[in-house]
């Protein structure tokens, strides 16, 4: 039985045992129909031209984990940004782990999607926001159909959340192959500020497929910093669908650090509903082996006087494949838009491939839009210079690559996080840079 059929029949079981709330129930039913019609995307679709899911869909994933698994904090401490105080929402094999988590209801809600979907006091928020930003594409719809667990974060007006929130999904490998579909909803009201770190980590080599959907709503003048750390094991695949709907004068940034995983697909979509909005999309990708990382971004400029900044750097080694597909749409009304997009890539192996497709679709005339994209190598003369000063070639190369990705790192606002990323990069490049930034 292929995965699609399995999911469709699992849905019937799933619908039986989740609480029947008619509002969400209807959404789920509609969503599963969309998925049934469209199925998994294939390479024939323009948005999936360079990424094939065929291989990872062949695994016999279990859709519902059979047992609850516990893990010790000390075993997984290294996956947290543990040297700072933070709120934590931790899931093990898709189930909430209360002893690893630290949530709150004190003046704001940093808790669980399962609670938000079932408790009446969240009903208004769910009706106003849930599934309002996600597209009706097949994979987000599949997630909607099975949405039951994930992070729910609601920050009310004028609130500065003093510590970052970490959302971590562990998979233990107790099931032979596991499919996870976390669903996150983040609503940030006027003038509030929040920082969120998201990570998916599998603890063994069992295949995992995560199809995650995150919806983020930033109301007037809200500020959201979102960091995604993707440094998973080589059997874990991730399809991340993130939708950000911004209101006027809000500022949202998403940094994606893609270092691990078998196949990673990031669908990152920004919708600007208001004036003077600022959106930032940045990413560093450093991969090797047979890894495949696909960044698919969309910035939709709908109203005037907004800005967007995109900067994606990629370093591709061994047999890896990188894809960048960035789209900027500027609507007719969105005059005075400034939209920038850069995608720079270094190929360090002759078997690595990079496919990049930066797109602009512009309907307004008074705009400044540009995109740039380069594919190249490390600068030989810079390498030579460093070697002539006694820096071994390996370190010199690492330094250059580090410098190459530093543009993206420099805008990370949590210092401990920046350090952590620096270490991961050094580790990836197989050197000790000997300094932290």
């Amino acid at each position, binding site marked *: 039985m292929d995965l699609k059929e399995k999911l469709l029949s699992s849905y019937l079981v799933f619908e039986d045992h989740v609480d029947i709330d008619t509002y969400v129930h209807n959404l789920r039913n509609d969503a599963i129909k969309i998925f049934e019609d469209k199925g998994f995307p294939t390479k024939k679709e*323009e948005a999936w031209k*360079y990424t094939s899911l065929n291989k990872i869909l062949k695994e016999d994933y279990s859709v519902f984990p059979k047992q609850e698994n516990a893990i010790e904090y000390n075993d997984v401490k290294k996956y947290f940004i543990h040297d700072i105080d933070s709120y934590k929402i931790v899931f093990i094999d898709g189930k909430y782990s209360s002893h690893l988590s630290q949530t709150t209801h004190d003046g704001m809600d940093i808790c669980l999607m399962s609670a938000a979907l079932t408790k009446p006091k969240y009903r208004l928020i769910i009706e106003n926001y849930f599934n309002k930003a996600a597209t009706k594409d097949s994979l987000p719809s599949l997630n909607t159909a099975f949405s039951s667990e994930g992070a729910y974060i609601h920050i009310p007006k004028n609130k500065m959340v003093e510590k970052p929130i970490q959302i971590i999904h562990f998979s233990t490998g107790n099931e032979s192959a596991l499919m996870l579909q976390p669903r996150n909803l983040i609503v940030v009201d006027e003038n509030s500020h929040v920082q969120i770190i998201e990570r998916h980590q599998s603890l063994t080599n069992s295949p995992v497929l995560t199809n995650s959907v995150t919806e983020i709503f930033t109301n007037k003048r809200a500020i959201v910093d979102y960091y995604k750390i993707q440094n998973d094991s080589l059997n874990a695949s991730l399809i991340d669908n993130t939708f950000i709907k911004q209101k006027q004068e809000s500022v949202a940034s998403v940094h994606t650090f893609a270092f691990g995983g078998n196949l990673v697909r990031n669908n990152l979509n920004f919708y600007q509903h208001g004036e003077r909005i600022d959106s930032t999309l940045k990413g560093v990708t450093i991969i090797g082996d047979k890894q495949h990382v696909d960044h698919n971004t969309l910035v939709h400029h709908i109203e005037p006087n907004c800005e967007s900044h995109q900067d994606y750097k990629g370093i591709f080694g061994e047999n890896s494949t990188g894809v960048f597909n960035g789209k900027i749409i500027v609507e*007719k009304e969105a*005059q005075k838009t400034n939209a920038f997009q850069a995608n720079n*890539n270094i*190929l*360090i*192996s*002759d*078997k*690595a*491939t*990079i*496919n*990049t*497709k*930066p*797109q*602009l*679709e*512009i*309907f*307004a*005339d*008074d*705009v*400044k*839009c*540009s*995109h*740039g*994209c*380069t*594919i*190249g*190598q490390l600068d030989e003369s810079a390498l030579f210079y460093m070697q002539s000063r006694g820096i071994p070639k390996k370190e010199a190369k690492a330094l250059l690559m580090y410098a190459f990705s530093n543009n993206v790192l420099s805008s990370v606002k949590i210092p401990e996080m920046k350090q952590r990323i620096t270490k991961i990069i050094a580790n990836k490049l197989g050197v000790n840079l000997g300094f932290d930034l």
Partner: protein
Amino acid sequence: MSKYTEDDLREELKTKEYEYGFYTDIKSDTFPIGLNEDIVRAISKKKEEPQWMTDWRLESFKAWKEMTEPEWANVKYEKPDFQAISYYSAPNSKPKYDSIDEVDPELLATFEKLGISLDEQKKLAGVAMDVVIDSVSVATTFKKTLGEKGIIFCSISEAIKEHPELVKKYIGTVVPQKDNFYAALNSAVFSDGSFCYIPKGVRCPMELSTYFRINQAGTGQFERTLVIADEGSYVSYLEGCTAPSRDENQLHAAVVELIALDDAEIKYSTVQNWYPGNAEGKGGVYNFVTKRGLCEKNAKISWTQVETGSAVTWKYPSCILKGDNSVGEFYSIAVTNNYQQADTGTKMIHLGKNTRSTIISKGISAGKSQNSYRGLVQINSRAENARNFSQCDSLLMGNECGAHTFPYIEAKNNSAKIEHEATTSKIGEDQIFYCNQRGIDTEKAIALIVNGFSKEVLNKLPMEFAVEAQKLLEISLEGSVG
């Protein structure tokens, strides 16, 4: 040629709608509408073609029947009904003329209106023209001069008869019959076109030129051009197109194949101003063209195009850089106004070592038009040290038009160096203010700025064409200033 000044342009703009929108009353020999095997056979027979060519056409026709029209381009239009088109239309006044004087005077008048009277053209810089009206070559000039050098420049139907070995060897090698829907259609029904062969080591002494016009209502124009530059040769080839005003959409599906053998260079320039439809978006030509060139070792192919016409343009002149050290270039200006739609760009396929390509594309959209750049740069895994530079700039005039860029970049070799940049902007108010301040009115200022914007590409055109192109550019932006 006297200098064409801004004032002349203003005068012209006042009076002009579509300058070339007239219809020449020449008795045409037109086939019944529709397409089937018999029509394909009939075309072939009419052209007195050998059996292999007929078979080749039929093979293409079979392939075409299996294919569906492509949908991926960023254009919207009413699909042409392929059974409602007459696939052959030839001016009746055959047979061939030995000299210009014998040509139907009405035909000559047509050219005169186009501003390309043969006499003038002959004098002007020694251009040899293979003039094509509704698919049949009616006049070929300077053939003798070219013949002395061993250069073959004739219509493709003549080439099929007289140089079958060359045609047989090269036709369909760069654009295979089954390449795409319109290429297959063209392969089945092409009525005429130009053929050019430059022998080894010969530098073609003059610019070769063809002029296409779609004349008869309801006829599709299916041109087939084949240019072969043998080892170490050089040729510069010019192509210009116009079509009279017609309300139904006319289909133009041409195929151009360029073959540059070792050390050869081909420069192919196009000025296209098919009828773009009127200001309400009614009528106009569908321009679905497949153009591709193949570069062997150290060869160079350079495409230059100025696209101002057609209701819908769908065109990607491409280079296959097969040989080591080969070079591909693409320079393009695409102007869309009113309801025009253009989806144009290039493909650079790097197969050989040390191959280089340059892409400069300038899109100007005005009115309610949509202008897209779609390009592919592909570096194959064996293409060591490949180098590409692409630049796509778009200029928007008015807030009802759109500019789009869809560049595809695929690199499979780690020694590749690729740069791509694109910008979209409008004409700066400060730029116009500066011009106004110096006594240049807004309309002229815009013409000036647009010209500057396109300079990089205009400079690549041969002189006579550059003048015409500049003029066209300004005419097509008429009324978009505001």
